[in-house]
Every structure is written in structure tokens, then in C-alpha cells.
């Protein structure tokens, strides 16, 4: 599936939910199922700090694809983190750097990304795209 196909799938999933509580239950479930980050990376070096909840993010390049693992101390945040990982992990650097993450808005979670929310999510999203850009630039160099 393409990156956008996954986004569309998520949007479809969320269309089932009339109620906020259903959305949250789903996010909580996703959060609980998120592949845990290796505890040794759950330190300040990998921390993306927000005022309200913390996010840890780790990345590696694996055969030209970027692999993200992440975690959060708040479970709903972790659910959203899981969605971002689902959409972006395993993609090529250029896909990540160019990604238009429209699903966040469409599933009604945009407010969670407002700069003043300070829950670390926005910073995480920026960071993910930055990794994409960085790997992309590096590839360019190594091809020279």
C-alpha cells in the first residue's frame, strides 16, 4: 500500500466512530499494541519534550527504508504516535520528507497537533519528516 492508501484506510476506520469515546478507545487499543521501543532508548536523548506528555522517537535506516519506533507516557498520545508510525515507518526517505499527512485533520485529531498543545506530537511529526530529509540528503551524497 502507498503511504496515502494507508492514510485513507485510517480515515475510513475512523468514519465508523460517531463518538469521541469510540475514537479514544480505538487509539488506546492502538497505543497498547504499538511495538515497544527498546527500553534503553527511552532516555533523554530520544525524548521529544512536550509540556503535557512525552514522546520518544528512534529511527534507523534499513535497506533504504526508514524504520521508526516510538513511545509515549500518555496512552492516547501513544495511539496517535502509533498511527504516525504506521503511515511513515518502512517508507523511503523521500516519501517521508514529501508526505502530506492529511489524515490527522480528517480523523478530527488536528487539535492534538496545535503548536500550543505541547504534547510533543507536532514536534514528533516534524522530527520524523526531518529524519526523512536527512536520510534523503545523505543518500544523495553517497550516490555522488
Amino acid at each position, binding site marked *: 500500500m502507498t503511504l496515502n492508501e494507508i492514510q485513507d484506510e485510517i480515515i475510513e476506520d475512523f468514519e465508523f466512530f460517531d463518538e469521541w*469515546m469510540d475514537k479514544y478507545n480505538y487509539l488506546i487499543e492502538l497505543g497498547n499494541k504499538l511495538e515497544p521501543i527498546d527500553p534503553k532508548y527511552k532516555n533523554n536523548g530520544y525524548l521529544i519534550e512536550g509540556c503535557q506528555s512525552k514522546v520518544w522517537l528512534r529511527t534507523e535506516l534499513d535497506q533504504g527504508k526508514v524504520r521508526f519506533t516510538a513511545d509515549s507516557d*500518555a496512552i492516547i498520545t501513544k495511539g496517535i504516535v502509533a498511527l504516525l508510525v504506521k503511515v511513515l515507518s518502512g517508507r523511503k526517505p523521500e516519501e517521508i520528507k514529501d508526505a502530506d499527512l492529511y489524515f490527522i485533520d480528517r480523523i478530527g485529531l488536528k487539535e492534538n497537533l496545535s503548536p500550543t498543545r505541547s504534547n510533543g506530537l507536532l514536534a514528533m511529526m516534524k522530527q520524523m519528516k526531518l529524519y526523512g530529509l536527512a536520510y534523503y540528503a545523505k543518500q544523495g551524497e553517497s550516490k555522488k
Partner: protein
Amino acid sequence: MFDVEKIRKDFPVLQQKIYGNPLIYLDNGATSQKPRVVIEKISSFYSQSNSSIHRGVHFFSEQATAKYESARITVKEFINAKHVHEVVFTAGTTASINNVAFSFGEKYIKAGDEIILTEMEHHANIVPWQMLCDRKGCKLKIIPFDDNGELILEDLEKMFTPKTRILAVTHVSNALGTINPVKEMIKKAHAYNVPVLIDGAQSIQHGVVDVRDLDCDFFVFSGHKIYGPTGIGVLYGKEKWLEEMPPYQGGGDMVRNVTFEKTTYNDLPFKFEAGTTNYVGAMGLATALNYLTETGREEIKEYESELTGYAHRKLGQVEGLKFFGTSTNKICILSFLLDGIHQYDAGMIIDKLGIAVRTGTHCAQPVMDHFGIDGTLRASLAFYNTKDEIDRLYEALLKVKQMLGS
């Protein structure tokens, strides 16, 4: 008789719905809602007689000046200051404290001097003093609190040294709700000739404050937390200090005479009110204070106290709920956590049920550090809240536990 249903009708915002539920506003510690009279005062002033104040010859300017100065008298009476000119209008508590830290600091503080704060101060009563310390090379001394959230005063006397210049303490902690024994602390400080600043941002709306009875040297608060508009606050200072301290900001109205060689300053309180003040804000604030006086400050206090007791008992029934701030002498602020549940998760769910509570550090990180936590959920009540709303919060917490509890 105090009739909460009648009072609720005075606050238009309380009629709103959120996500289809009637709004339950329990974030009064952050900012309060405004009674209709305040909103209408602002509208009608702008619609009927707006003009800049001071030194205009024309009718509107005279009228606006008279209203602004009468707002000052209202504040003076509300806090029982000795002189009208001891009341300075500022942009808020934060601006007031920064003003004192700067002007007091310029006049009286030098390298090696000491400033006493407490461990439960809001950032607004920490950072301005830290900035002063950076500039002047003075240092902070901190009065700790115990696990009930009460200041440990045994050692207070030992804290004063000949280098102590000022004690700045919050009247009520915004994170814990504790009412501090400030009158006693002021008396002790004065015995060592140390003046005291009281941060009244969380106290004045919940009780009767008498600055002469307290004998505090400075008392500061924000309009927006006492049912008035944003952008207005008060700095009360004893005449002696305000006379001696240099001004904080320069500009129009705070000067008597300006030449490039020498500028002389205006009398109190104008010396501390540079530029066009928020005179409409001041009128709105005075309207709010009059509204409280008419409603009955003692009655408000009594009702809030009853509501607080009820809330503690009710929320105390939620299994795994832990309160932070368990002093018996506290106002209607409830800070708590649910065992094993992140406050941010809880806050998000509670929000969707139409209940506004705050989560986080409440700009009092040292309080969080004391307990080794990241933040709390905070329900801060006002006299327009009801037992029924507390019940709804209780149910919301059960729902949170059901969704998140492991």
C-alpha cells in the same frame, strides 16, 4: 440568601454547550467567566463614551477619567487600602510582580542580598526574582512545604538574615489550593524589617482581603481571575515603598516634565502607569468587584467552602484517586491524579464529556518536582459551580478509569 441558580444566569458563558453537553467549567484558577454586567460595561463604554483619559479638556475625556479614577477607588475599598494612590493598575499579576521586582530591586537590592520565596510559588513569582538575581547577583532562599502542601514555618525565623531584602509569597497556591498563613509570616518578616509581597492571584476572588489588616507591603492580583476582563491587574503598594521606588516603565502620563537633559516623574499612582493604560479594563474590573460586593463576599466564601468540602468527599470516593494539597485550610482548588493514568489522557477524555479541567504543571513546576510528578488534573471551582457539576466530574472520572484503568 445565596442562590447559585440565580447567579448562574448572570454568566452567559455558562449557558453554552460543548460536544453537545452543557459546559461544566472547572478551570477557574486559570481564568474566570464574566458576569453580564462586566461584558455590558465594556460594550457600553466603547459604544457610548470612549475617550482617552487624563489631561483631555473635552467632555468624553473628563468622563472617562472620572470613571477610571472611580475604578481605582473601588479597588482601594475592595482591598481596604489606606490611600487611593496606593492602587496602581497594571496588565496583570505577572506585570505587577515584574514591576516590583524591577523597581524594588533597583532601589534596594545589591550583590549578595537575599530574597525569600516559597516552594509553592507560581512561575510568575519565581522567574522575575531569578532574573533580578541574575542582574544583581543576589540569591533566592526557599521555604519548603510538607506533603500536605503546607509551608514548613519552623525554620522561617532562621531564614532571615541582615541581607534579606524581601519575602514574596503566594496567598493561595494555584496548584495545591493551600491558604498560607500570610498574616503571621508578614508579622515575622516585619520583625526583621523585611517587607512582604503577597501574590493574591488565587486568593482575592475567594475571600475577603484586607491589605491593612494583613499589613502586607505589596499585594498583586489579576482582573481576569476575579471575573473581570483580560489585560488588567492591580499592584497595591504601601505609599512609602511606591514613593521611594523608581518607576518601572517610562512614557506618557508618568512624567511631570520632560527634557532631553532631565525628566521628572509624576505623583503616585501615575508614576507607575506609563502610557495609555487599559482604562476600559479597569472599569470592567471595578464592575466585577462591585458585582462580588453586591453578591456578598462572605456568602460567596461560605458557599465555595461548602462546595469544596463536598467535592473532596465525592472525588475521594474514586478509587485510586490521590489528592495533592491536603491542607485543611484551602480554597476550592482540587489537584489530583488517578493511579496509573496519565493526567493528559484523563484530561482529554474529561474534555470530551464537556468538562473543562486543567492538566499539567499549572505553572508551578517546583510543586510537581516536590511530589516527583509531571503534572496533575486540576479542578478549580468558583461560586457559580454546583454540586451537580461535581457529580458529573465524579462520573467522568469513573469513565476515565473504565477506559484507561488497567
